[in-house]
């Protein structure tokens, strides 16, 4: 993991001190709410429906066990005993008191964490593939470049007042687990035909009320040019991005309005002034950064692992968990395990302080003390010996964290919705819970196969409904919650924006509607097809007919 140097620590400590003074001045009336609001937002502190909410950055989803224990401590001491992992690999606390937040930030600083740039019109937390550094299909570790971008973008004076918020995602594998195409900038590391590793640069993706997929503006960018090129992108956006209308201020609107070709021309023109200068990334710096993300000392192990195979054969529940939640590791004899934060009927992404502490202990025992947060609101232990998986699974079962549903219909992304969020128009979590209960039978889930349901409680789309195979958008119609269904979205390397299937459903009708969609797929699917394959083969018509035919 990256370890703060003196400069990092000084920046964070100085910010805590500043914020402590700002909170004191707010409480004694020296600052009005209007004056204080931008200051608290710069430190991740929102005022939501019921209380303040503190969003803490988890850079590119990487957490140490020490950091996880600190999050558990904060949940217990300053909140109501739980936290909520988000679609941007962050964690949110729903009930902090304003007067406690400087102490919370000081405690976070003790473990090299902060809430800087988790809100506001600036470059937000950089997200990455949750399997970074360990994925069997990885070409290059995206954490190295994510950390470089984090350092470059932290308190960057030129980019602290952008037209709107700005989100980077980075991957280093052909399979996109970080939803690159729906980010302001997506960076995909790959090896070109000449055998050189560099980035495909995608710009102008996003969800919200105007969903768009990012366009590739440079098919190959050498790694040393990373910072000069992204700085050129930011300069073009900062200069030409709209500031007159917040709904048209994201970079996706700029790219759309002037066209990807013209946008690219402007970036390339700006880049000519910047490339080869002080933002040039020398190999030595990349190597220095790479050392922070060196693999732990893996043992030379045989693979397959007899004990693991034997236990799977003996225990059907373990076998189900291994099939759904365990992913291929690049090192023979090792595995990656997903910890589902989607227990049947639970709140997607929530973890109690006790669960956080237990995961930290398990990470220490089995995963070199390292944990990842996924944008799908689950956790990952990245460095596991296959021979330890059975014991790990039993320990997870004991803390209700062994739900074997990763990638299945009950592994639902849901934003906090109207249960917590001041912007929401409808509730998301109860819909996720009822769907989870309807499809609780694990054999039914396995039969349905991979299926991504994503639920947002308003048009801002924090629940990624636009890229759900089945997307659900909660709206308010004449004082009642209603739910619009989109089909065919996907967030992987074949990213697509889902299309609205028809009129919205009532709160009472939405779960039945989703079941109708799934039953239609089961009736239509051909050998070897997953939900998305069938949908793409048949189109929406058979689904529409089953949903609305009788109307």
């Amino acid at each position: 993991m990256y370890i703060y140097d003196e400069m990092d620590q000084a920046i964070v400590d100085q910010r805590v001190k500043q914020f402590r003074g700002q909170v004191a001045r707010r409480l004694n009336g020296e600052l009005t709410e209007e004056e204080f609001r931008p200051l608290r937002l710069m430190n991740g502190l929102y005022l939501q429906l019921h209380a303040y909410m503190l969003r803490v950055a988890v850079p590119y989803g990487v957490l140490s066990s020490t950091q996880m224990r600190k999050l558990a401590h904060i949940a217990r001491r300053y909140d109501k005993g739980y936290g909520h992992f988000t679609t941007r690999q962050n964690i949110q606390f729903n009930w902090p008191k304003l007067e406690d937040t400087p102490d919370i930030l000081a405690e976070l600083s003790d473990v090299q964490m902060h809430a800087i740039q988790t809100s506001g019109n600036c470059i937000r937390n950089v997200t990455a593939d949750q399997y970074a550094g360990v994925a069997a299909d990885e070409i290059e570790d995206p954490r190295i470049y994510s950390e470089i971008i984090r350092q470059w973008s932290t308190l960057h004076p030129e980019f602290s007042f952008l037209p709107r918020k700005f989100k980077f995602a980075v991957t280093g594998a052909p399979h996109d687990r970080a939803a690159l195409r729906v980010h302001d900038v997506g960076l995909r590391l790959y090896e070109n035909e000449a055998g050189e590793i560099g980035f495909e640069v995608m710009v102008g993706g996003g969800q919200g009320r105007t969903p768009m997929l990012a366009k590739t503006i440079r098919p190959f960018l050498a790694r040393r040019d990373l910072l000069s090129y992204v700085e050129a992108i930011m300069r073009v956006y900062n200069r030409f991005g709209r500031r007159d209308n917040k709904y048209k201020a994201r970079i996706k609107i700029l790219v759309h309005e002037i066209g990807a070709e013209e946008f690219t021309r402007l970036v390339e023109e700006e880049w000519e002034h910047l490339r080869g200068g002080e933002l040039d990334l020398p190999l030595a710096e990349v190597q220095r950064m790479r050392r922070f993300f060196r693999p732990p000392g893996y043992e030379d192990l045989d693979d397959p692992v007899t004990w693991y195979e034997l236990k799977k054969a003996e225990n059907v529940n373990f076998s189900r968990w291994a099939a759904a939640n365990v992913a291929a590791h690049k090192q023979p004899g090792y595995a990656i395990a997903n910890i589902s934060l989607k227990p049947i009927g639970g709140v997607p992404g929530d973890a109690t302080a006790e669960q956080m502490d237990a995961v930290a202990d398990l990470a220490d025992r089995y995963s070199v003390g390292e944990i990842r947060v996924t944008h799908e609101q689950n956790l990952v232990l990245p460095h596991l010996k296959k021979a330890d998986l059975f014991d790990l699974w039993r320990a997870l079962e004991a803390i209700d964290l062994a739900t074997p549903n990763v990638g299945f219909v009950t592994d639902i992304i849901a934003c906090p919705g109207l249960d917590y969020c001041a912007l929401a128009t409808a509730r998301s979590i109860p819909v996720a819970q009822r769907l989870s209960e309807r499809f609780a039978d694990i054999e039914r889930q396995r039969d349905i196969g991979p299926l991504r349901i994503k639920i947002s409680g308003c048009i801002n789309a924090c629940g990624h409904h636009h890229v759900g195979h089945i997307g659900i958008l909660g709206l308010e119609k004449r004082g009642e919650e209603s739910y619009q269904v989109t089909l065919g979205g996907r967030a992987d390397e074949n990213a697509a924006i889902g299309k609205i299937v028809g009129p919205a459903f009532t709160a009472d009708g939405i779960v039945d509607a989703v079941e109708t969609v799934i039953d239609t797929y089961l009736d239509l699917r051909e050998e070897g097809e997953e939900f998305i394959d069938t949908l793409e083969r048949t189109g929406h018509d058979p689904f529409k007919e089953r949903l609305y035919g009788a109307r």
Partner: protein
Amino acid sequence: MMQIVTANRLRDGLVVYLSADGGWSDRIGDAVEAADEVAARELMETANRSEIECRIVGPYLVKVENAADGPAPVEHREAVRVSGPTVQTSLNRGAHGGHQRRHV
């Protein structure tokens, strides 16, 4: 329609309602009601003074109906603010609220 004033308390952000004595209560049952626009404006003047005094943040008027156990917001969003999150019963403020809407 009757109106009451709600806000979030500055120190902890919790939902509060303006009461008859000019204070702020976390129980909607304590809220003072305005029967017309003149009375509503007067309540907002009191609330705005409270904001200047750093007691609360962002006061606004909420339309309510009179239920058997006190004022009940008409809008769904405000009903959720009364009860707390509808998804984790341990966090609900239902005992304080007295108004429960049908949940999904």
